[in-house]
C-alpha cells in the first residue's frame, strides 16, 4: 500500500532536515487542550448521528408503522393491529411465490458469476503479459449504473430488432422472446446481472490467485503432482476464503435486487421476474399498503441479517483453518 511505503519519510525529514526547514513545534501550548475522549466523541458523532437519523430512525418508524393500518395516500383512521400485518405477509401465497423467484435468481446469478468469474480469473492468472490491461477492460460492466446496463440489454434483447435475435436468426433460428416469456425473462435477468457482476468475482479471485506463493507449485512440480492435484490442494484452499467473501457481497446484493428488475422487465411478464424487493415496492407504492409493506420490509431485513450471521460464522471457521 502506498501509504505504508511513504510512511517513514516525514520522520526522517523531521530528524535530518536542514535547520532552516525545521519549524519549531509549539512546545509551550501544552495546557488547555481538549481531552482525547472528547476529540474522539466529537469526531465520530456527526457520522453516527447521520446514520441514526437516515437509517435507524426510518427503520424504527417502519417498525411502528408495521403494527398499524397506516397508508401513505389513503385517508383512513389509524388502527393498531399489532402482528396482523406480519401474519398477512407470512401467509400470503404471493409472497412465497416471490421468495421462490428471488431464491432462484440469487442462486442462479451468484452461481453463474462465481463459476465464470473464477474461470476468467484462473485464465488471467496464468498470463503474465497483458494481464493488467485485460483486467481493466473486463472490469467495465461493474462501473456502470444498473439503469445504463438495463438500457443496453433491453435494446439487445428486444424480440424484433435486438441484436441477440439477429444473431440467432443469422444461424437459422427463430426469434426468441427473451423478455416476454416467463422462464426466459428470469433467465435473462440472471444473465444480465451476471454480465455486470462477473468482473467483481473475477477481480477478487484474481487477487487471491496471484497471491499464491510460487514455491508451493515448484514443490508440487518436484513431487510430480497432477494439475488437478495442484488446483485442488494448493490453489483452491488459498482462494476459497476470498471467494466466500465475494459470494457474500454478491448474495446480499442479489437478494435485494430492485433497480435492474425495474428497468429491464418491470417484474413481468406477469410476476415471473418479481423479486421480493420489487414486490415490496408494488405493495408500498402501487397499492399504498404502507403498513403491510413496512412489515414485509422488516421481515426481509430479519431474513438477510440472520442469513448473514450464519454465513459469517461459517466464514470465520474457514478463515481460522
Amino acid at each position, binding site marked *: 500500500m502506498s*501509504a505504508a511505503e511513504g510512511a517513514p519519510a516525514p520522520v526522517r525529514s523531521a530528524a535530518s532536515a536542514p535547520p532552516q526547514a525545521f519549524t519549531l513545534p509549539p512546545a509551550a501550548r501544552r495546557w488547555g487542550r481538549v481531552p482525547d475522549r472528547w476529540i474522539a466523541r466529537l469526531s465520530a458523532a456527526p457520522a453516527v448521528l447521520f*446514520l441514526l437519523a437516515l437509517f435507524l430512525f426510518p427503520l424504527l418508524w*417502519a417498525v411502528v408503522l408495521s403494527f398499524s393500518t397506516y397508508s401513505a395516500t389513503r385517508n383512513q383512521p389509524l388502527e393498531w393491529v399489532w402482528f396482523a400485518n406480519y401474519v398477512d405477509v407470512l401467509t400470503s401465497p404471493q409472497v412465497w411465490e416471490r421468495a421462490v423467484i428471488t431464491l432462484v435468481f440469487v442462486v442462479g446469478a451468484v452461481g453463474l458469476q462465481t463459476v465464470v468469474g473464477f474461470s476468467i480469473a484462473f485464465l488471467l492468472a496464468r498470463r503474465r503479459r497483458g494481464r493488467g490491461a*485485460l483486467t481493466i477492460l473486463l472490469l467495465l460492466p461493474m*462501473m456502470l449504473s444498473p439503469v445504463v446496463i438495463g*438500457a443496453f440489454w433491453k435494446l439487445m434483447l428486444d424480440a424484433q430488432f435486438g441484436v441477440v435475435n439477429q444473431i440467432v436468426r443469422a444461424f437459422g433460428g427463430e426469434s426468441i422472446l427473451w423478455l416476454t416469456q416467463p422462464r426466459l425473462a428470469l433467465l435473462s435477468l440472471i444473465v444480465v446481472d451476471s454480465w455486470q457482476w462477473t468482473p467483481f468475482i473475477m477481480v477478487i479471485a484474481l487477487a487471491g490467485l496471484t497471491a499464491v506463493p510460487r514455491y508451493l507449485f515448484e514443490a508440487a512440480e518436484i513431487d510430480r503432482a497432477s494439475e488437478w492435484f495442484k488446483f485442488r490442494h494448493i490453489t483452491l484452499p488459498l482462494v476459497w476464503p476470498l471467494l466466500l467473501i465475494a459470494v457474500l457481497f454478491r448474495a446480499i446484493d442479489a437478494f435485494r435486487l*430492485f433497480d435492474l428488475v425495474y428497468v429491464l422487465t418491470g417484474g413481468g411478464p406477469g410476476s415471473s421476474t418479481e423479486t421480493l424487493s420489487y414486490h415490496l415496492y408494488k405493495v408500498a407504492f402501487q397499492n399504498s399498503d404502507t403498513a403491510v409493506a413496512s412489515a414485509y420490509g422488516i421481515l426481509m431485513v430479519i431474513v438477510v441479517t440472520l442469513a448473514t450471521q450464519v454465513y459469517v460464522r461459517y466464514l470465520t471457521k474457514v478463515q481460522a483453518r
Partner: protein
Amino acid sequence: MSAQTRESSRVRTTIEVVLLAIAVAVMLFPAAWMLLTSLKDLQDVYAGSVVFSPTLENYRDVFVSRSAAGGASDLVRNFANSVIVTASATVLATVIGVPAAWAFSRFPLKGKKDQLFFILSTRFMPPVVVVIPLFVMYRTLHLYDTRIGLVLLYTAFNLPFTIWMMKGFIDEVPAEYEDAAMVDGYSRLQAFHKVALPLLLPGILATAVFSLIFTWNEFTFAVFLTGATSRTVPPAIAGLLGGQSTPWGLVAAAAMVFAVPVLAFGWFVRTHLVAGMTFGAVRR
C-alpha cells in the same frame, strides 16, 4: 521436456487465449453496441444495421430541446442535478466520514465494535425497505423532491463505506507517528493534520472517488424521493425507457454521456478496486 508435451502446452495456451478473447468480447460488446446505437437514427436502430451513416443528432438531443423554442433539454437539468447532488454528497461524506474513521481507528471508544457493526449493517439493508418510511418522513419534512434531501440521504448512504475504507487506510499508518509529533508539542488535532493527513491523502482521494461513482449511479432512492425538479439522470433515463416507443438513439447517447465520467473515475481508482468494492474487507 519432450516435443510432444511442448506441443500440447502450446495448444493449451492457444485455447486459453481464445477463451480470454471471448470473455473480453462478451464483456465489451454491449457497450460497443450502445455506442453504435447512439450514432444511429431510429430507422437504423430498428433495421439493426451494422453499416450506416453515423449522425450526431442524438447527442445534440441530449443537450438541446427538440421543441420549436429550442433551449436546453430536460436532460440538461437532470445532469445538473446529478452533478450538484453527487459532488455535495461526496464532499460531505468525506468531511464527516474521515474524522469518524480516525476516531474509530485511534481511540478506545465505548461500544466501538457495536457502532462499527451498526455502520456496516446499514450497507446490507434493502434500499426499498428504507425508502418506505423515508418517503413518509421526507414528505412531512418537505424534503421530498429537493436536492438537499437527496444530498443528506446520499451522504448517509456513503458514510458506512467511507468509514470502513478509511479505517483500513488509517490503521496502516502507525499511531506512533502522531504520538511522536505530540511529544514535540503538537496537539492531537495538529498531529493528525500535520503528520497523518498527508500520508492519508491518496487513500482519502480513492475513497472519495468511490463515493462519487456510487452516488452518480444510484437509482432506487432517486426514483422514489425525487419528482420533476430534482430528478437525477438514472431515473430520467429509466423514464425514457418506460414509454410506448423508446427513443433508442437518445437513450443510448444519454447513457454514453452519463457513463463516460464514471469510466474515467474508475480508471483513476483502478488499483483500489478490490478494496473499494468490498468495504476494505479484501485488500491486496
